[in-house]
């Protein structure tokens, strides 16, 4: 993969164009960084899903309905 293509992958993960100094990195390093951001996002999504499910079981039964209504769960 070319460096420009690797920067595009990184840009997609960031949702914006990275600063110009990032060109000092090799395509492999750029892809590693993009992968680290993607993994962090996935980890966050998984943690959120799991915590949301577990939290519901810990709140008083009477409040579960209203809470689910707000969270869309």
């Amino acid at each position, binding site marked *: 993969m070319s460096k420009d293509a690797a920067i595009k992958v990184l840009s997609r993960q960031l949702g914006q164009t990275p600063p110009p100094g990032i060109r000092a990195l090799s395509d492999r390093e750029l892809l590693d960084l993009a992968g680290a951001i993607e*993994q962090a996002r996935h980890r966050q999504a998984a943690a959120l899903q799991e915590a949301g499910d577990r939290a519901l079981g810990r709140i008083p039964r009477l409040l579960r309905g209203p809470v689910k209504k707000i969270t869309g769960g």
Partner: protein
Amino acid sequence: MRREGEIRPEGPVRGKRSIARESGLQPEIVKLARLLHRDPEQLSYLEQVPPGDLGLLREQVTEALFNAHDGTLRRLAAASRLLPAGLVASLGQGTFGPMLSARIAGLLEADRAVEIAAKMPTAFLADVAVELDPRRASAVIAGIPPERIFEITAELERRGEYVTMGRFVGHLSDAALHAALEALDDEAFSKTMFVIEEPVDDGVRRVLAKRLRQH
């Protein structure tokens, strides 16, 4: 103070962090590694990037991660209003953990977040501080009583979390900053000053300069 090479009791992730603390990597790389939950050494290739651009990159990564599940986090913050502060504190500590609690903190009304934080143990608040983007929770930080800031700072110092403390300096009130500085010995103060995050206002500069003169 913890001695060099001393085994840290908090587990493998923080164990890795302690290596990073003494790795000599740019603070921005250590901060970015925290965000990405990577060992800083794995990101050592970022040393090739100019420091200014590294700071911008970290801001972009922060934005990407904090905005990634913004809708869900906002709905959770809204739902938490239905629950007593004690239960929210318990859920934060026992179910959501420090990373998600840090993401949600800035989305709560500041008074409510402060009320919840008051019910959390200091060690957990230190965990949250490591994960928090102070710019997104400055109103919450400003509401934490100075005596609690002292306790959290002492805990962060115990862990060698100079990078975390450096991120917070510019977000503390005068009273909170004084309390935080009380918790730091001269060595920890110097290490924190080395990684302090700009900008800091004139009031903060004056307090820091006063402490420097006391060295």
